[in-house]
């Protein structure tokens, strides 16, 4: 292969890193700090030690750990942090962005090329940012005969639904946006929205190729939702609950994939179909119907749909981990927090530096279990995402009739076998009440 790649030089690498750090710092100072100020002005700030926090006070806290840490504590427990940052949208969007990058690099390695290389200097790490900027700066063109309100609303609804999906995923003990008893049922409800949004977007464009793509997406999603739901019934029978956190806790000894491998395989296949990924990317088959239901979307509308579909990918992979791979359960690999050193002060030679207020860092906000659980959860999710991406390099696209045949006859049959296995395990007393657990 005659691939021409520049020679790797350590000095160049370090220089590029420093360059990036310089620009990040500059942008942070010029744009980030004002933005922090603006947000602090809008957010209802907590009362700490009988003192109302004002933005100016908050800035002075930045340099005073004694006062900063309680603020961080207060913020970590707020709903806004959960929704925007950690188990919610920000975390998922970050993971989705890294999935796009990893996917491109992985496909490139598989196909004997280099992939994104120049943008950001280090292995094209900023390529995604460049793509995003390009999409934002593109003109949005709407077909003349489109049903405009629905056409505008569809991409936003798509991202919103995907984000609602993300909200159901428990990442670590206590770290979940919406911990509801009917979590799995809520998941079924959320994925029921995707075909509706897809067909709305496709039909409102009033164009031929999006219409065909939308109809294909409708066929595909509706016919694969049934095996998707059926494949999860085994887990529900064995655990006796629909709460996702409780399902994870039931797998503290062994993941359900050990007992229900058929259910896991069926769920994985239906997951690929729901995500419209190769080999089931018929709704976006570019050689047949241009870009399917995405044909008329342009600029950031397209970008939003892409963001939504990658959020959906993360959420489905996370759901696979939650239901079949044991979620956050795993050996404790995060070391215990050094409580002694901090509570008694930091020893610096003969002097002991004591900082007040650090004790509360070790209170219930972040625990060792939470960090460990998050680490295992992310590792397992990354593994599942790897297997979701992999078929893209290996398989061509299937045809509609083969797809529907697979969904309606073969997968549903396998689902019933899976349910019978679960019932057998339950009645034999191996699992469930009085069994291994």
């Amino acid at each position, binding site marked *: *292969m*005659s691939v021409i790649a520049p020679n790797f030089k350590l000095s160049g690498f370090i220089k590029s890193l420093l360059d990036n750090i310089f620009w990040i710092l500059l942008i942070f100072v010029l744009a980030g700090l004002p933005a922090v100020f603006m947000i602090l002005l809008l957010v209802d700030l907590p009362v700490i030690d009988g003192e109302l926090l004002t933005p100016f006070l908050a800035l002075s806290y930045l340099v005073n750990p004694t006062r900063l840490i309680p603020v961080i504590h207060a913020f970590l427990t707020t709903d806004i942090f959960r929704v925007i940052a950690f188990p919610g949208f920000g975390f998922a969007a970050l993971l989705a962005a890294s999935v796009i990058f990893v996917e491109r690099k992985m*496909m490139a390695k*598989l*196909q*004997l*090329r280099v992939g994104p290389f120049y943008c950001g200097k280090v292995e094209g790490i900023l390529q995604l940012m460049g793509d995003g900027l390009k999409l934002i700066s593109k003109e949005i063109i709407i077909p003349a005969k489109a049903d405009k309100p629905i056409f505008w609303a569809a991409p936003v609804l798509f991202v919103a639904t995907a984000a609602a999906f993300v909200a159901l995923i428990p990442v670590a003990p206590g770290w979940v946006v919406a911990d509801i008893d009917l979590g799995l049922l809520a998941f079924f409800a959320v994925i029921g929205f995707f075909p509706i949004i897809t067909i709305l977007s496709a039909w409102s464009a009033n164009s*031929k*190729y999006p219409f*065909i793509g939308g109809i294909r997406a409708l066929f595909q999603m509706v016919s694969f939702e049934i095996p998707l739901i059926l494949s999860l019934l085994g887990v529900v029978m064995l655990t006796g609950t629909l709460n996702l956190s409780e399902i994870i806790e039931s797998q503290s000894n062994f993941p359900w994939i050990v007992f229900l491998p058929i259910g896991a395989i069926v769920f994985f296949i239906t997951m690929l179909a729901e995500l419209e990924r*190769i*080999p089931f*990317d*018929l709704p976006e*088959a*570019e*050689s*047949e*119907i*241009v870009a399917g239901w995405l044909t008329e979307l342009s600029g950031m509308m397209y970008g939003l749909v892409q963001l939504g579909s990658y959020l959906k990918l993360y959420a489905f992979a996370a759901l696979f981990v939650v239901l079949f791979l044991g979620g956050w359960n795993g050996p404790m690999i995060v070391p215990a927090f050094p409580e002694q050193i901090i509570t008694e002060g930091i020893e610096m030679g003969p002097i002991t530096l004591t900082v007040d207020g650090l004790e509360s860092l070790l209170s219930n906000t972040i625990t060792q279990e939470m960090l460990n659980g998050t680490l295992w959860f992310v590792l397992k999710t990354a593994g599942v995402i790897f297997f979701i991406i992999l078929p*893209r*390099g*290996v*398989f*061509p*696209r*299937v*045809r*509609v*009739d*083969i797809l529907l045949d697979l969904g309606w006859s073969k997968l549903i049959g396998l689902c019933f076998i899976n349910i019978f296995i679960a019932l057998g395990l339950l009645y034999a007393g191996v699992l469930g009440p009085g069994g291994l657990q």
Partner: protein
Amino acid sequence: MTTELPRDIKLASSEKQIDQSSSNWLPPGLALQKVDEKIMTLNVGPQHPGSGHMRLIIQIDGDYIVACDPDPGYVHRGEEKMAEYRNYITNIPHLERPVIHDSCNILYPYVLGVEELLGIEVPERAKYLRVIGAEINRCIYIMYWLAIYGIFLGHSTMFMWPTGDRELLIDLMEKMTGARVTHSHFVPGGVRNDLPANFEDVCLRQVNYFEKRIKEYAAVFYDNPILISRTKDTGVLSRQDAIRLGTTGSVLRASGVDFDVRKKEPYDVYDEFDFESIVMKEGDSYARSKVPWLDMMESCRIIKQALEKIPKSGSVRVKLKPNPKGKGFDTVYKRVESGRGSLGCYIVSDAKPEPYRLKLSVPSFRNLIALPYLLKGEKLGNMPAVYWSLNYWPVEADR
């Protein structure tokens, strides 16, 4: 011999005589036709990722194609007319433009014809060099075709692998001729340049590696169960239909007709090599996609044999007089086996430095004729699989 078409299908344009002079006339596909409400007309191309430089006017009923009307001509460049204004040597660079990936093979019949008109005897070494060039070019073309077939079926790895491996042979041709794609290497009287030093060793090494590499495609593409389920029994062209429709090359051989110009009418030194013409009986898209791939392996065999048998020294070109002209009013027709099928060139000379008339009989256009019959009754999802399996190059069909 009957003249009726294999399947009773009437194309939209042939149903009624359209009066083109009336003010309401629009090109086919753009005119509003009164059709069944269930039927949707799709313009696949010219702005479509799966069409190439042409348009397919497809009518679908649900997921089934009712009628297909190919509309080529978007890249018509008037090659034949241009040839009448240039002399026999300056015709060489522009005649290879229709298929730049197969540029040696499209020049081959022209060069053979001009040699017969001028009555030139070609040196032995030049004949072998032509065979090497033509076979490497055939592989380059088929790799490009295969890459597009891969991406048409949604297999992105099968797009990247042949595109990358093709570089091996392009580098070889660059060494041999000095140009990467449009070589202008064949000239009346031989080839333009002799080989560079050490070419034989490099060529043998690259071709061996290439052969090993294309065998790996079986695992990722040809033995892939999804590919087989998509292309088996789709677009079946029976042996009789293939002959009646006048298809050629890999399409004809995939339908069970053993016709390879290199075997049946050997030109230059093709009768000295031991190779097989690949024939498959199925006649479906899968067979049509597999025949060119097997052809490449035979090409590798021919290249290796040619490297052994080539005379080690000798001239590679007969010196021509400036501005050569034919001896009198004369016609000649020569054909060769190109990457797509038998490619003919008909030259009429009237003892002037320019040809009086030059006609290219291209395989792409002959294979395209089969498309409406194959697509009728197929599912829309099969359209790219059938369309590109016809080994069709839009630019060549338009000339």
